């Protein structure tokens, strides 16, 4: 079945270092969403990408949607301790426009 894979599963960085997480789908996605979940918290929507090759920025966060619309990445420049959490990508399941399939997430730890 359709899967959304994320790598790496865990990432430890020193504060100030950059961080990137990658998301890959087995099928073409109409759109991809990114969520952040703080430890003990719930997923919070960050952004949605729709167009092939789209790049969006939110302050130190840069989101990219691949040309084939099967992969995406989230890059954080100069990480801060407030960036700690698990980052999930999510895309619509093929054949259903109603439900999102979430990746397994990348858990980011930022060491002060």
């Amino acid at each position, binding site marked *: 079945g359709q899967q959304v894979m994320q790598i790496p599963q865990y990432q430890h960085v020193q504060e100030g270092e950059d961080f990137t997480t990658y998301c890959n789908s087995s099928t073409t996605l109409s759109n991809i969403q990114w969520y952040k979940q703080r430890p003990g918290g*719930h997923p919070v929507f960050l952004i949605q990408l*729709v167009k092939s090759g789209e790049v969006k920025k939110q302050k130190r966060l840069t989101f990219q949607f691949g040309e084939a619309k099967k992969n995406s990445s989230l890059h954080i420049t100069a990480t801060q301790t407030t960036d700690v959490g698990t980052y999930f990508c999510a895309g619509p399941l093929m054949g259903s426009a109603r439900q999102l399939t979430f990746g397994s997430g990348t858990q980011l730890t930022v060491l002060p």
Partner: protein
Amino acid sequence: GAGVSQTPSNKVTEKGKYVELRCDPISGHTALYWYRQSLGQGPEFLIYFQGTGAADDSGLPNDRFFAVRPEGSVSTLKIQRTERGDSAVYLCASSLMGGADTEAFFGQGTRLTVV
């Protein structure tokens, strides 16, 4: 309300018992989703409501799971004959219009532990 509200926040039940989990979505949001999240995993889709009707229940794992949304607002997820494998955080989300291209707002979740 200000956000999606879920009650209880924690529920411990014995194997074989029946439980109900409640979700109060953001006022005016027509779409409501239930997800289940196990430790170290992403949320797993269970069911989606548009208004009062279950538009997609393909994620419900078996017939022990059932959800309702009788007035198109509050929803209840019901689990019969609970099993230890049902232990997880059950997340509810709502969105203004629905569909997988709409921002979903998640509640804090209900942590269900079956002992």
